[in-house]
Structures are given as C-alpha cells and as structure tokens.
C-alpha cells in the first residue's frame, strides 16, 4: 500500500519534470513519426516484406510502435543515473522510500511514454492509410504491447544503471542490447522471410512477443489467443526485470 502510494507520487514527479522539458516533448512526438515515415518509404517497394498486410506501412506501424517502446525502455536508466548523480536516490533511500517504488516509478513512466507515442504512431498510421483490423480490441492490444515492452526494458535498464552508474557505460549497454534485439525480431521483416536461425532466436526475444501481439491486432484482427499469450509473457518479464532492478539496489548500496 505504502509502495503503491509512493510509486504514484514518484510517477507524478517524473511526469511533471518531463513536461517542463519542451525539447523532450518535441523529441517524444517527432521521433516515432520519423521512424515510421523513413522506414515506410525506404522499404515500401519491397512487396514480400509485408506478409499479407494491405501495405508495408500497415505492416510496419505495429513494428515501429514496438521498436519505439523498447528503445525508450532501454534508455530509461538514464533518468535513474541522473537521480543517482544528483543524490535524489540517496535522499529517498535514507527516508522510508520503498526501493520497489523507486524502480516502478521509472518503469511506469517509460510505459506511459510508450503508450503516448503508440497513440501518436497509430494516428499518423491512420493518416497514411493503415487500418487497425482488430478494431477497439486491436487498439487496446497495441497499446498494451507498447506499455509492457517499455516496462520490460526499463526494468532491465534501471538495474544496469544501478550497477554501472555511469552515463557512458549506460549508452554502450543500451546500444549493445537494443540494435541486435531489433534485428532479431520481425519489426522490419516478416517472420516468414527470416533465416531459420534468426527465427529460432526471435521466438525467445521479448521484443518479438510484443511485435507479434501488436501486428496480429493491426494486420489480422484476430489470433487473440496468441496475442494474449505473448502479452502474458511480457507481463511476467516486466515483473522479473523490475525485481531485478530492485535487487540491484544491493549492489549500489554496497558500493557507496
């Protein structure tokens, strides 16, 4: 109960602080649109890529939603590092702040950001002729996939932030993890076109769980069982990485 209250107030703090950064808001809105438009144009002539979708943009939109969500998540630890550097975390820890609440506030902030960006992407997609075949349920699934994906990677990223505590190391880790996971997923290319070994790995890639759920919701508008299964896996993974980050406070507190 105390943890839930503290989480809530810490999320409010983060959201309010972000709203005071006009550059951040602009980047948050523009960047996903750039992804969608650039990738959409670049690969639009390559018909096989889109695997039965009405257009490559329709195929791509749920993928970009997920890419954006998990990239956002991998960078979430930067906010933790800034709070560590400014001793805000120490101040919380010397007060009766729940470690889980500190982590969850970062993770939920990343999730909410991802939802907002997903909404922007879907609206831009609609303007480019994308149809969400799953209707209202489809929208909910896409937003849930982006929320959970961001949280999975934000938990991981916060744990790494607590262990490494340096921006440069954090940037290196985010790139090291982010790009391979993107190419080991069906964000840009349908599963059918992947080499076998990538397809095998992609099955265990949380990014791909999200892409599968979101793409089913947009392109197919069915296959809900598989989507639910993947969302369930993402929820479990999000819980696991949040606990991992909370556990990383031990490492941090041993080192100070």
């Amino acid at each position: 109960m105390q943890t839930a209250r503290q989480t809530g107030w810490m999320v409010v703090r983060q959201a309010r602080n972000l709203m005071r950064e006009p550059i951040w808001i602009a980047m948050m809105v523009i960047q996903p649109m750039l992804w969608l438009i650039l990738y959409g144009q670049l690969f639009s002539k390559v018909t096989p890529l889109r695997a039965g979708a009405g257009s490559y943009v329709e195929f791509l939109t749920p993928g970009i939603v997920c890419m954006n969500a998990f990239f956002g998540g991998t960078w979430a630890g930067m906010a933790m590092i800034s709070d560590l550097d400014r001793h805000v975390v120490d101040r919380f820890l010397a007060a009766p702040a729940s470690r889980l609440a500190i982590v969850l506030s970062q993770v939920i902030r990343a999730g909410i950001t991802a939802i907002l960006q997903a909404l922007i992407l879907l609206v831009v997609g609609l303007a480019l002729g994308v149809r969400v075949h799953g209707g209202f349920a489809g929208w909910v699934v896409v937003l849930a996939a982006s929320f959970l994906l961001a949280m999975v990677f934000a938990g991981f990223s916060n744990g790494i932030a607590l262990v490494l505590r340096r921006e440069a190391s954090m940037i290196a880790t985010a790139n090291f993890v982010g790009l391979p996971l993107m190419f080991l997923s069906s964000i840009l290319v349908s599963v059918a076109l992947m080499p076998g070994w990538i397809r095998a790995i992609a099955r265990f890639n949380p990014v791909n769980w999200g892409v599968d759920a979101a793409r089913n919701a947009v392109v197919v508008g069915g296959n809900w069982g598989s989507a639910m299964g993947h969302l369930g896996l993402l929820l479990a993974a999000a819980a696991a990485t949040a606990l991992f980050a909370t556990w990383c406070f031990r490492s941090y507190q041993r080192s100070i």
Partner: protein
Amino acid sequence: MDAIVAEDLRKRYRAVQALDGVSFAVREGEVFGLLGPNGAGKSTTVRVLTTLTRPDSGRAFVAGEDVVAHPARVRRSIGYVAQDSGVDWEATGRENLLLQGRIHGMSGSPLRARVDELLGFVGLEEAADRPARGYSGGMKRRLDIAIGLVHGPSVLFLDEPTTGLDPEARAAMWVEVERLAKEQSLTILLTTHYLEEADRLAERVAIVSRGRVVVEGRPDELKAGLRGESVTVELGDVDGQIEGAAEIVRRIEGVSEVVVDEQHVRTRVPNGAQAIPAILSALDSGGFPVASVTTARPSLDDVYLHYTGREFSSEDEEGAH
C-alpha cells in the same frame, strides 16, 4: 541517552579501508562535528549511520535503533542532507518538500502546513514555486535542510553543509545551523573539513583520520589539553634548506611537533616568551635569517597535528568516498 552511538565501525571498498574502527557517541540534543580531511572516512560514517550502506563489521545505533538490524525504524527518525545536495532540480522547492513528506507518509493539509512552515524557516517563501534549477548554491543548501526536516526528525545529518559555497553563503549557512540547533529540538551530526567550521558550530568534535577517530571532545578542551603555545617562524631566504632549519629547531630543549612548509617552521613550546630567544639565536647561528615570528594559542590545527602527527592542511587522504 546517546542519540548516536558508533562502535568499531569498519568498511572496506576494494583497496581502500574507508573505516578502520570508528567509534564515538553523540549526546541527545547536541551539535556534534566529525572533523577530518577529505577521504578520512567522514562521509562513509554518515552513510552507515543513515542506513545508506552497511558496515563490514561494528555496530551503530541512531535514535536508539540498530542501523543494521532495523534500518526502516532509523529512517523514520533521521533527516539526511547529502554532501552534494539531494535536490530535484526540475521540481520547485515546494514540490521537493511535498514529495519528501509523502515518502514519510504525510499527506493533506498537515503536510501543506508543514511545508509552508519550513519554507518560511529557511527563507525560501518567495522562491518556493520556482524550479530549484534556478536556485543559488546557498538556496539549494537551505532547501536541502528543509527537506531533511520535513517529517520532524530527532537526528539530523549534515554532510559537509558548506562545501562548495562561497564565503558569504558559508557564513549564512553557519548562522542557519546555529539557529537550527537552537530552535528545533534536534541532535545534529555535521561533517566538515573546515577547522573553523567545527570550532564554531560543534559543541563536541571527533577528529577523524584514516578511518579512525583519533580524539573526541569539546574544541576548547581539546585546545586547552595542548598546553603551551604554537610558534611560527617565517624565514627570509631558505634556499631549499628548510629541513635544515627544522632540524636546528628540533634540537632546542622544550620544543615539540616541529613542522615546516615552504618558508615557515612551526612548533609548539610550553612558553613562547621564553622559547623565542633560543629559537631565534639557534636559527641565526645556523645561517637562517628570520623574517618574522608569531605566537598563538593552540588551534584545532595543532590538536590535529598532535594526535595524528600530520598537519591538517597538508592532508588530502587517498580514496575519498
């Protein structure tokens, strides 16, 4: 009852023995200073006492609770003001205070009233609704103190409260801490590497050096404990031979703790008026022209030198934490 008790605290970070058996006790309601050079172990001691990190061995009690066994209970009774400020820059002063109060389980109008009271206490009413990013160093520090006080703690930790402040802001902070000690019923533990700060603010000090408390007591007692006076001789032209001058002074009967820097030989003698002629004639016949001589009552600097064998100003110990 003692508000803080540290017993033989030890902590090691890889190659650095940060705490090597720190023991001291702080009485309820007093302002206690941990004085020592950078890296002596002051901040590590504070981090152990505020439950931020655990000692490898040893015990500590704050407000009657064991910091290792019951950290959550300790956290409810302490306020902690970190060395480099814990202010959230993007939030306003008021928002910083409200969040800290909520972390302590406060809410509603009692919290808002407490925040207003504290903003007034530290003189930040006008800046209360501006983001802290725009605050001066002194304002941030005052906000830090207000944040540490929001839940009405019984023990307040101030880690290097004036480091990084300009002289004017430092003087203002000293007044602030004195007022705090007088107006709030608080035990205050402050760390500092400024001798004069400890001298002015602390009722009692523990001098920390290389992870140990070398002596503990009231500043005036510590100084009075060193009988005699300190004599500082400034030499005219030393030409790199300052150690030779020190040797000459060391051979004089009655002098102790001879130390040198570029142009000065400093020593402690039982009686300055009697010792100075002997010192001057010895230096003169050794070929060292004397430019000036001053005597002074022992300072905390001399206390530090006496108990550690090293000069305070020359110390900046390895592995600052």
